């Protein structure tokens, strides 16, 4: 197995909230991503997914700061680079060429007074070293990219952002992010505003692009169905930390953290009768007042006194190749079972199917 394309070690990120105050939004992240993999980052609203995604590209806003850790990339030319040591100019080249991001709130990411065409022209010209981007070349490249996301280049390139629907803007932004063939693509809630048919078609496009160009994807999503469809690996975050990680099958069929299991149990099925749904009781902790011990303990049905003492680190459950190890940060993981019958049914349906073959 080759070395990872991105290695994250003990990464922590804080936001300044006052002159002497700050809050830690992401803590102690360790992650190895291998070429061609897709990782889904899931977790409750406010748990630090966007912060981590921005951190991976050093795109944090002014008051956000990486307070510890390292971020090492293998670049297109095979060399390795520590992103945290990179100076301004190499960093500018790194972004969009080596790694790109589709921002959450994509709908608002376009400059409202600039037509979509000029967004493409600016990105291509700003980040491509040496290459000359004529109007025709931009048009050709942008047209090709927009078609990939099911948009009509003719109309969209000439439009101002407000003339496009929410989902159309989101798709245009995905097209823009892959304009310079990055190796790593971070997508933050890339399909929140998209209906299922468009989502499916984009998922298929991403799969094909990934096969063709072999890029590595981190996508942040609250949509577990999408994660099941796109991801080889899943990492669950809670209160700024990764609390469970593993292959998509490990996480969806056999989650071992009570929070992950709770998320899967809360999925609303489309088929069948309307179920009575339970949300996970309680609220995510405020960054300003983290509980001692396991951060999930005030909400956890399995919590014991031991859970309130020391922070619970990730520990290995099942070893797997290429960073796909199943690891969990829970003292009582052996008690955790998926409760939802629908998933059981689906799982047994799948098993039954393969048994018949």
């Amino acid at each position, binding site marked *: 197995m080759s070395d990872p394309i991105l290695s994250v070690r003990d990464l922590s990120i804080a936001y300044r909230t006052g002159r002497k105050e700050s809050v830690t939004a992401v803590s102690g992240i360790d992650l190895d991503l291998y070429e061609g993999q897709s990782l889904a980052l899931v977790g409750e609203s*406010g748990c630090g997914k966007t912060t981590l995604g921005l951190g991976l590209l050093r795109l944090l806003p002014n008051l956000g700061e990486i307070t510890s850790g390292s971020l090492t990339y293998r670049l297109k030319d095979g060399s390795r680079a520590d992103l945290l040591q990179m100076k301004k100019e190499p960093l500018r080249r790194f972004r969009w060429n080596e790694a790109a991001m589709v921002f959450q709130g994509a709908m608002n990411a376009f400059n409202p007074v600039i037509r979509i065409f000029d967004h493409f022209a600016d990105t291509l010209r700003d980040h491509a070293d040496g290459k000359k981007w004529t109007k025709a070349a931009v048009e050709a490249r942008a047209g090709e990219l927009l078609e990939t996301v099911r948009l009509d280049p*003719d109309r969209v390139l000439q439009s101002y952002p407000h003339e496009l629907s929410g989902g159309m803007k989101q798709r245009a932004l995905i097209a823009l992010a892959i304009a310079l063939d990055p190796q790593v693509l971070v997508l933050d809630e890339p399909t929140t*505003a998209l209906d299922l*048919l468009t989502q499916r078609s984009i998922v298929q496009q991403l799969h094909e692009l990934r096969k063709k160009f072999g890029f590595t994807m981190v996508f942040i999503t*609250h949509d577990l*169905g999408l994660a099941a469809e796109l991801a080889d690996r899943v990492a669950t975050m809670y209160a700024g930390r990764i609390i469970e990680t593993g292959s998509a099958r490990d996480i*969806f069929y056999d989650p071992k953290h009570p929070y992950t299991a709770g998320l899967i149990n809360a999925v*609303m099925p*489309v088929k069948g009768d309307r179920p009575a749904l339970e949300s996970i009781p309680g609220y995510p902790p405020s960054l300003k007042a983290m509980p001692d011990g396991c951060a999930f303990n005030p909400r956890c049905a399995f919590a014991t006194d031991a859970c309130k003492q020391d922070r619970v680190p990730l520990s290995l459950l099942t070893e797997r190749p290429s960073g796909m190890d199943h690891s969990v940060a829970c003292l009582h993981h052996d008690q955790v079972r998926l409760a939802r019958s629908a*998933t059981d049914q689906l799982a047994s349906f799948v098993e039954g199917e393969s048994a018949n073959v």
Partner: protein
Amino acid sequence: MSNAPLLKLSGMEQVFETKKGPVPAVGGVDLEVKPGKVLCLVGESGCGKTTTARAAAGLTKPTAGTVEFRGKNLAEMTAAERGQYRRAVQYIHQDPYAALNPTRTVFSTLSAGLKKHGIVKNRTEARAKAAELLQLVDLTPPESYLDSYPHQLSGGQRQRVNVARSLALNPDLLICDESTSMLDVSIRVSLLNTLGRLRDELDVGFLFITHDLAVAKYFAWDGEIAVMYLGKVVEHGPTPEVIGNPQHPYTKALIGAVCEPDPDLAKANRSAEQLRSAEIPSLRDLPAGCAFHPRCPAFEPGLCDAAEPPLQATPSRRKLSCHVVHRDLQRATPDATLTFDAVPGSRRPETESAL
């Protein structure tokens, strides 16, 4: 009284003039929302959901047709009636990033409307009421959020501040445009339950836009779903009927595209594309006849591309616009629904029987 619609759209059209010619984003829709009821609007990106919602909220003037609130035509309201309507009907913007003023704290955003409409008398009351609103949307403890600026909030937190703001004025009608799209399942269920209490206990009506059919099903179970395609409603009926037994080929395709959180199932389904084309036709150059025909798996040349199918009632408690379905219905009496199995468009025939 309580059965008279709160909101009524009749023949509502919206054509946008652009440099490249007119864009008919909404081509004549008739919809109603009753007190304490939910009407869900679903459909592909760009089909006109937001445009319909914005006209219903009085943010744009339809180019044809009418919007009525409690029986009053919006275009003919007096200034006082309009003020009333503005308080009673709250629109929650699709994009929580664009909808919040970046220079205002959460408290200032929430209290602006409270003060303007005299709901609170002083700052202490305003803070208490704002805190109460934040609690309704699971932003607790409220003190952690009241003095934050939008840029200090995550996407889902912004979305919930937007919802909280719309609840401040005790609206009669809420127009929610993808208002739970950035929330994880657990918070989403909790927020839907909160909105459900407004619906059931305070008789608030909802025009509810979502691309998530599970959300539609959960929230609008006792209500209706209208499926839009290229600016028109193509199937409209009670939620359990439309989701459980979709009949328009387009609705079938939408429901067939659902992803379940199951990696093996997802991989098995990945290649199964049931539409003839993924391309959404341009609004400026709509296909002749049924606008869905270039993509429809049940397309019949000569029938489908000749005339536009009208939105007609069927015996199975819904309206839909499809030549083939209506014809088969007429042929196969009395139990016409059986013939719908002949219409392809569901990715998972195995589970169809369970629907």
